[in-house]
């Protein structure tokens, strides 16, 4: 079991409330995944700049002089915004990949959660309400976001094993279910040059989608081919810089409920995750069909 929530805002006036709404949805799904929680949020963008979200088990030491050290090493301006065990590094887009490589030398213990123009990922072990409080998720703003509460099956209960997983710029994926052919796909994707950091099955699913898109597929096409190539149970919710997608395996035993109004499209593993959304009584509520790709974009 795991819990998934997602919110894609069509009405820009709701942007300041995205964090509040998603946090409430996430905490409602605690029963489905009490061991860890995470959220990907698509927020503000600074022209010509990218964001690297990093996590450390020793944030006090790792983050204290990180911005200065990066600035010195790469001769660029870096702004660091720390949130508990995570920090968002805002830096010039042109140097984002150089910075990522430099981080490995400067702070070998640091983990990169995400990189991209707008995405930030925060995830940790613990009850969803505690994770939400540590990062003050409720204060976050953005156009869309995806959250996950984890009950681990395929790999250890660690920060690295928590969802969302990001394997490409501004991309993220969360998963309810378990993949049975992920070891084969991990080997193949690594040969194809994909970066996979954990032994988690979901990260392979994320890397699969990123790889397909790198090879020229649209997100929709990548999710369609995932239906053929990935074996096992899955409800996936995927985020990109301007979009939000959903796909369930053909057996579709992992639950999924969607709601759409003129203001938003929302996803919940269960209806109770959606009950506090504005005007939910008037929303169109439905279950996504098995083996069918759904996608919304701004």
């Amino acid at each position, binding site marked *: 079991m795991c819990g998934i929530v997602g919110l894609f805002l069509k009405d820009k006036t709701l942007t300041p409330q995205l964090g509040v709404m998603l946090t409430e949805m996430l905490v409602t799904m605690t029963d489905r995944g009490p061991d860890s929680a995470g959220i990907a949020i698509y927020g503000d963008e600074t022209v010509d700049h990218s964001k690297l979200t990093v996590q450390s088990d020793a944030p006090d030491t790792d983050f204290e002089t990180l911005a200065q050290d990066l600035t010195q090493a790469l001769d660029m301006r870096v702004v660091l915004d720390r949130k508990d065990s995570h920090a968002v590094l805002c830096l010039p887009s042109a140097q984002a990949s150089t910075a990522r490589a430099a981080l490995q030398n400067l702070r070998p213990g640091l983990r990169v959660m995400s990189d991209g123009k707008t995405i930030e990922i925060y995830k940790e072990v613990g009850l969803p309400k505690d994770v939400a409080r540590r990062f003050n998720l409720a204060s976050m703003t953005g156009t869309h976001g995806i959250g996950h509460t984890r009950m681990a099956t395929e790999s250890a209960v660690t920060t690295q094993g928590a969802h969302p997983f990001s394997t490409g710029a501004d991309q993220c994926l969360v998963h309810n279910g378990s993949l049975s052919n992920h070891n084969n796909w991990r080997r193949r994707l690594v040969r194809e040059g994909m970066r996979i950091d954990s032994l988690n099955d979901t990260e392979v699913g994320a890397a699969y989608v990123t790889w397909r898109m790198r090879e020229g597929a649209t997100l929709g096409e990548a999710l369609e081919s995932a239906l053929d190539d990935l074996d096992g149970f899955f409800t996936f919710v995927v985020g990109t810089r301007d979009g939000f997608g959903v796909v369930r395996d053909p*057996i*579709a*035993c992992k*639950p999924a409920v969607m709601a759409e109004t003129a203001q938003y499209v929302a996803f919940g593993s*269960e*209806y*109770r995750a959606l*009950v506090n959304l504005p005007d939910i009584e008037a929303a169109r509520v439905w*279950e996504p069909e*098995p083996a069918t790709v759904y996608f919304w974009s701004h």
Partner: protein
Amino acid sequence: MQTLDLASTSLRDVNATLQALTDASNATQWEILNPRGAHAIAVGLDAPVDVTVRGSTGYYCAGMNKHATVHVTGSAGPGVAENMMSGTVVIDGDASQYAGATGRGGLLVVKGNAASRCGISMKGIDIVVHGNIGHMSAFMGQAGNLVVCGDAGDALGDSLYEARIFVRGAVKGLGADCIEKEMRAEHLDMLRVLLQRAECDANPEDFRRYGSARKLYNFDIDNAAAY
């Protein structure tokens, strides 16, 4: 009408109140407010009372129902009326996967659509769905009737025993050992009564009947190809 509000009363207390009712109870009309997708609402009832749930429910609403009539004005989550023994459960909206699973008796009515595995392993329950049903419905159904006014998904009636299936619309695909069968007068009569009880004005003549080819009851090497 007695009112139980889940916004102010715990689910456990709501269910305990309803489960304590007997044939002799004077209060027979109940409503439950603010279900907000909660699990296991109105489960294990054992008295001829009417319970209306105003809103949508989560997993296992009205499970193991005996004698009671439970009416959900919204949609129901997975496993609604699971293992129902008798009584009636009516869902005004849609039902999620495995509605009426393993039900032994009574009537389940879904006025919207039902998702996958509707009536899986049904053992005597009657299920009437006004809309469509998803894949693998009535899988290993042993007894009872599944009536679908819309379309049926893939692998309908896979490994079916003696449950009967009636579909008005299209069937995407039949499961192993499920075949179309002749609609006889006795089936039309039974269907007429069931549709009436389910407040459905469909014409029994428009339905087709599906049942078991009875090749997979016991393993027989001559039937290996039927799996």
